[in-house]
Each structure stands twice: as C-alpha cells, then as structure tokens.
C-alpha cells in the first residue's frame, strides 16, 4: 500500500484521540502520566500541588494520540483506508478546531 491512506488515517485519528484523551482527563481528573516541572519528573500519580507543584498533562495527550493514531494507521485495512473520502481528511480537524473554541470559551466569562 502507498503511504497515502495511512497518513490520512493517522491525521484523522490523531486529533480525535488527542481531544478524547483531553476530555477524559477533564471528566475523570486522570491522565496516562503527568510531568511535574518543579520536580523535573514524570509520574502516573496525581501528586499534591503543595508538594510537587503544578502538573503538565499536555505531553500525555500528545503521546497517547501519537500511539493511538500510529496503531490505527497500521491496523486499518488497506481497502478501508483508501476509501476514506477527502472531506473527512479536512472536515474532522476543522470540526475539532470548532469544538476547542466552543469548549474553551469557558475562560472568557
């Protein structure tokens, strides 16, 4: 198979997986891992702010999305990947950008 269809699958799934992991973290206050810049270390535990300082979850969402989309691009059958319409390639990320704007408007009230 040409790399083409795999690349489109990767791009479509990456954004969805990233936002899925983000909303999972928002809803359940959990993450694959956290980075604590004050401690300069990663942890799977939600450490106390007073002891560990603020946590960064962004790396875990990026890492998770990379793994999920790489696996998806690899396992999606060739015939299915090549049938994905072009509108999905730009339509899904465009929708995600709108979802981000709508969700993050909470900061502006």
């Amino acid at each position, binding site marked *: 198979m040409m790399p083409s269809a795999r690349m489109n699958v990767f791009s479509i799934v990456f*954004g969805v997986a990233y936002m899925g992991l983000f909303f999972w973290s928002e809803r359940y206050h959990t993450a694959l891992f956290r980075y604590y810049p004050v401690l300069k270390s990663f942890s799977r535990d939600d450490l106390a702010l007073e002891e560990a300082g603020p946590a960064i979850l962004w790396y875990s969402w990026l890492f998770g999305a990379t793994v999920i989309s790489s696996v998806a691009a690899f396992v999606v059958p060739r015939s299915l990947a090549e049938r994905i319409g072009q509108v999905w390639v730009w339509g899904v990320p465009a929708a995600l950008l709108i979802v981000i704007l709508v969700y993050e408007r909470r900061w502006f009230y």
Partner: protein
Amino acid sequence: MIQLLLVLHVLVGAALLGAITHQAFSVARRPTAPGRSFVERFRGVNSPTFTNVIVLLFFVNVVLGSLLYPQYRVEVRPTLEDLQLRAANGIFETKEHFAAVALGLLPAYWLAWRPPLLPVRAETRKYLTWMLAFVAWWSFVVGELLNNIKGLFP
C-alpha cells in the same frame, strides 16, 4: 537557556508564518496571468516548494514550545492567575490544543501537497493549508501577547 529557546521559538514561528501565509494565499485562487500587484505576486508563488519547509518548521516549533512549556507552567501561568487574567489563560489553552491538532494534520497536509497535485485533493490542500495558517497565526499572536502581558496589562 530559556531565553535562547524563546528567541528561537519566535524566529522559527516568524519563518513559518512567512511560508504558510504565502501558501495560504496561493491556494485561495490560482492567478491566470503573471501578477503585477504586490498581492498577486505574493499569491503567485510556487506553493508546493513550501510544503517540506512548512512541515519541518511546524514540527520544530511545536518541539520548541513543548520545551518552553514547563517554564510557562511554573512561572507565567501562576502570574496570570494572580492577576486574575482568565482570558489570557484561556487563549493559551486554545493555543496548546490547536497546536496539537495541527501537529497531527502534518502527514495529511504533506500528502495533499505531494506531486503530482491531484485535483481530487485540491479542497484538502486548500483547507488543511488554511487550518495550519490559522493555527500558526493564532499561536504566534497568543505567544507574543503572553510574552508581553505585563507591559500590556500593567
């Protein structure tokens, strides 16, 4: 070290803006004849030649941003919270999400601009380029705004 990374982040961002803005204008409408005005010449570039550079610059700038992020989280964000600048925090949140989604777009974007430029991918080329341009501009403006926020909101 942080200052060096920050300057590099800005410089790479500026180079990215130059390249992606050229390409974003060029896909808006193909010129039928050699342009004479500044806008026509700006739009009349050979767009595919920008693609690899844009992918590289975008990727490098996300990496630079991710290296700078811990400093922001420890020093800048608490300051914003102390100043009760919720909107400033919010625009940074959108920046990090936009950058992540755009990072994932790079393979499809690269593919869409891969020669030969198939007509079936014309819309994909256009919209992915516009999305990357939007994210690049948003990220640059937000970054500059936050970097200078103490001067803007004394």
